[in-house]
């Protein structure tokens, strides 16, 4: 549930979102991408009100997302998965999108698995596929939902390397993550959400060390 929550992110910024389970982090992503419809409030993207825009148009407008639990198109190959984003997400012809897909697979390290059925991938590769598919749509803003969750320490390091590369392209990133050290390595700012409201926000290290955030993570009650 989301209640009186207002978060803005500037172009080119990397924002981290943390908060306990059930705080409304994923729900907030679902509102931005149109997966859920809000009862009140607005979604503004690049100065345009997109509150009533259909989901696929939000994607084409430049909002890319990854899902917390990967949702691969399991009956399609990795290449085809990325191709969906590259053709439909950018509203381009199929043949004109091949080049773009090859580049994306190269960035995310999935080239060797291009012809594998997405349903048979390991968790790390599924997360990579989520990222590849979102990138293929040429997003202006990338919403990452616990993309490092469930991975081993070494796998997180691999993924961080790829996300660092993305940062250099200038794409805006909003990243929900429980693995705090991964967030701290990337983001410029952190916002903490609890019970559907904003608890605090600011410099990543200051926020994570503040007493109220510590209390909220250790199971304390809100002030």
């Amino acid at each position, binding site marked *: 549930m989301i209640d009186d929550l207002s978060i803005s992110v500037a172009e080119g910024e990397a924002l981290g979102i943390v908060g306990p389970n059930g705080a409304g982090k994923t729900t907030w992503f679902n509102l931005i991408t149109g*997966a859920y419809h809000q009862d009140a409030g607005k979604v503004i993207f690049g100065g345009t009100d997109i509150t009533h825009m259909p989901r696929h148009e939000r994607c084409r407008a430049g909002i890319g997302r990854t899902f917390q639990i990967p949702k691969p198109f399991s*009956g399609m190959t990795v290449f085809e998965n990325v191709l969906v984003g590259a*053709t*439909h997400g950018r*509203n381009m012809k*199929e043949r004109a999108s091949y080049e773009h897909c090859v580049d994306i697979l190269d960035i995310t390290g999935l080239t060797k698995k291009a012809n594998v059925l997405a349903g048979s991938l390991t968790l790390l590769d599924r997360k990579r596929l989520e990222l590849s598919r979102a990138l*293929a749509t040429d997003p202006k803003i990338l919403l990452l939902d616990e993309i490092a969750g469930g991975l081993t320490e070494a796998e997180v390091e691999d993924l961080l390397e790829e996300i660092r590369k993305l940062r250099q392209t200038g794409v805006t990133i909003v990243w929900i993550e429980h693995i705090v050290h991964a967030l701290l390595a990337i983001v410029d700012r952190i916002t903490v959400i609890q019970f559907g409201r904003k608890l605090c926000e600011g410099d990543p290290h200051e926020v994570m060390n503040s007493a109220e955030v510590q209390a909220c993570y250790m199971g304390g009650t809100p002030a």
Partner: protein
Amino acid sequence: MTAAKAATLENKRFTVWVANRTNLAIGIFGLLIVVALALFPTYAGTPLTRRLVDFFTLLALAQFWNLMLGYAGLISVGQQGFIGIGSYTLWLFSDIMHINPFISVIFAAIGGAIIAFPAASLVFKLKGGYLAIGTWVIAEILRLIVANIKRTGGGSGITIQAATKLGTTVRVPGSYWWALASAVIAIAVTYFLLRSRTGLALKAIRDNDLAAESNGVNLWRTKLYTYIIGGAGCAMVGAIVAIHLLRVQPAAAFSINWTGYLIFISVIGGVGTIEGPIIGTIIYFVLRETTSKYGEWYFIVLGILAIIVTVWSPAGIYGYVVRKTNFFLFPLQRKLRMLEGAKE
């Protein structure tokens, strides 16, 4: 290596392919089967030819139904509405407007597409089981409307005069070829649609519709295309059946039994593949031909078989084959091959 080939390699780092030599061989073999089937009426007797009309029309319907359910996730239990519309449109064009019945089939298909458009805007507001009931309600409404028109003979139906006048020697092979064509059209439309850009969207929707939309797939439009193709296709088949049977009755043309057969065929063969409905139709047809003389036992056998297959392999017989071998008669996967020695 020739200079020209080297030049293309320099610019290309990769190729994308769908079919290989095995697929080509299967394709040629399939074409030969179609040619052999097309010549069938010239050497086989009328009874057998007539039976195959049933087979091909069912195969066409199953293929269109599979396209809607297996890819776009549209559970229609109302395709009989389009079959009925096709039958009556055929009567309208051939008996009232005096157009050759075999040409009227095309108008029937267009009629189905025209009905599908407003029907879609109604049923797409519903989801899952409610959508299924919605399609059935529309089919029933169409049946009641037609049954209450005096000009078409009301509930007792009407004979297609133009089809009777053709005579057996023209009508039987003619309807056979149309039936065969409808099956080939259904398979070809499904195949080439899935090979297209829209096909990427359809396969994505089949696997996860929310993720498809989040990746820019226009869900509503893709479903609409599919529903219109399904409507036009089923109306085309309805028209062929009308020529074949010479008579149209609302209770038969708009019968829910049509959907019953299609569900059985799809459950047995497997949805979401082109091969599934082909296998399902063959099994259904063989069972019908061998067990229908035992009266009700026929339905009991069908029911038991459907239960066994769903428990053993929920994805149907072809779903089992795919899981074990990843082999497709109709190749649809786009495969990427990186070229060695290509310049970065």
